């Protein structure tokens, strides 16, 4: 065999191997979706998709399987985490990429990476021991400390490393010419950051936030430990609408994890249905990121 044909052969083999690896993840996603869907079908068929999605009571004993409260719980805790975590993460990213001298970066960045390595159950413990008692100090009727606020803070810290790291990289990757161009026009450092660097890094920052959102929606054990787990539609405890975050709640993930060990029959199927809803929510988040990115590119 000449080396020419051997090389073409290798070329073809490699191409096939790479194609298979790329298809593998697609296949796995499809398989997970199909099997979860298959297990969820009895619940959807028996109870009705809309009735499950809009139902606010979850009483497996009574055959009531409304998951709206859990959708709201997951949604609100993620919203809370975004409200707290994104500004914090962006601030960190901007500081590390543009402002901090090298030696501070060398201390801060590893500690953020360390944050990413802490197991979520440890975050849960921290939340229970530190945050929950703190939140309990807020005067409001029915405030037990366990609830959306404590959970949002825990979640914000958990998504911080992801969002901060990727955003920092995005800001650092902005070409030096933009920075110099802006400064040479008499812009201050902050004007350059806010008017040129952040807009230019926007696609990367959006990806960072979406990855963080995905992680937040999927977080389970830490949420179970601090969110209170009551199946109630979160509602404001006082006249202040923000006090909704003092309400107890349950996340979609928590619902599955807490009950799957003993659930049977329709109950079990309803938990799979919860998983399907979670799956679709995460897909929606990802595709909305795609939409935002395209809109950014057009401008």
């Amino acid at each position, binding site marked *: 065999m000449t080396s020419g044909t051997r090389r073409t052969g290798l070329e073809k083999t490699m191409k096939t191997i790479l194609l298979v690896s790329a298809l593998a993840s697609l296949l796995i996603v499809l398989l997970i979706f199909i099997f979860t869907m298959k297990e969820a079908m009895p619940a959807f068929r028996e109870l009705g998709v809309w009735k499950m999605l809009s139902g606010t009571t979850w009483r497996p004993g009574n055959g009531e399987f409304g998951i709206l409260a859990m959708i709201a719980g997951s949604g609100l805790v993620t919203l809370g985490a975004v409200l707290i975590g994104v500004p914090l993460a962006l601030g960190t990213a901007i500081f590390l990429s543009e402002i901090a001298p090298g030696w501070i970066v060398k201390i801060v960045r590893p500690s953020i990476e360390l944050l990413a390595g802490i197991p979520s159950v440890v975050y849960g413990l921290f939340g229970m021991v530190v945050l929950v008692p703190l939140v309990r100090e807020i005067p409001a009727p029915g405030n037990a400390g366990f609830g959306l606020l404590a959970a949002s803070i825990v979640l914000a810290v958990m998504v911080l490393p992801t969002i901060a790291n990727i955003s920092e990289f995005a800001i650092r990757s902005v070409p030096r*010419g933009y920075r110099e161009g802006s400064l040479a*026009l*008499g812009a201050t450092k902050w004007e350059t950051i806010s008017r040129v660097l952040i*807009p230019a890094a926007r696609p990367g920052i959006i990806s960072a936030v979406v990855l963080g959102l995905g992680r937040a929606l999927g977080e389970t054990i830490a949420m179970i430990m601090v969110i209170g787990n009551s199946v109630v539609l979160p509602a404001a405890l006082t006249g202040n609408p923000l006090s909704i975050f003092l309400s107890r709640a349950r996340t979609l993930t928590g619902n599955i994890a807490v009950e799957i060990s003993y659930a049977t029959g329709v109950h079990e199927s309803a938990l799979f249905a919860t998983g399907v809803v979670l799956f679709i929510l995460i897909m929606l988040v990802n595709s909305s990121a795609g939409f935002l990115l395209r809109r950014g590119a057009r*401008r």
Partner: protein
Amino acid sequence: MENETTRMSTEGYSLFYGRFKALNSIDIKIPSNRITAFIGPSGCGKSTFLRSFNRMNDLIPGVTTTGTVRLDGRDVAKEDVVKLRKKVGMVFQRPNPFPKSIFDNVAYGPRLHGLRNRSDLAVLVEKSLRQAAIWEEVKDDLQKSGMSLSGGQQQRLCIARAIAVEPEVILMDEPASALDPVATLKIEELMNELKMNYTIAIVTHNMQQAGRVSDYTAFMLTDQNRAGNLIEFGATKQIFTTPVDSRTEDYISGRFG
């Protein structure tokens, strides 16, 4: 040179990267409303020197200087850097429009300096684009991204962006080195028109370009310690025909560099 008004000048100006001396005691007077070209081989410090006039070297950690740089007789080191850079604009080697619309690129500087009124901005943007000889090519769609233009157009957009803040001096750091000959010619023609209103200092690798566009030429060269020195400065015609220093003659005639 005796009859010229000085716009910018340096006296005994040296610049150090850490302990390394990159510029050695440079004295120069850059005349107003003229084009002054800085030529010399790579690494002779001409770009570094150009960046001293708007203090872009401040951004580099470890840079220290001695001597003075003056704009209209005032020491730029004592001036507010934001105000200085408004008066001393800069065009870079690689065209660097922001990833914004053509309009927003040109309006960027004026907005920074407080111009908010939309119709005033529109007038200023048009005026700047006209002065930069790019208006006719872009007037139909000012909302198009500045990045979508060709390299030569991007560079003229950057010149428009610099003009829009109404500077006194425009520094150009090899503004045509990334452009093709046709785009280069356009930039050179443009410079000739701009010198009516602005003082221009240009760094160029291209000696023909210096000969074509500049009124005055400064020749720089590194000494045995690799520090940049100003060897000779004078009217371009004189530098190119009857240089005083033999090193200038060697460089001009292509014996090295």
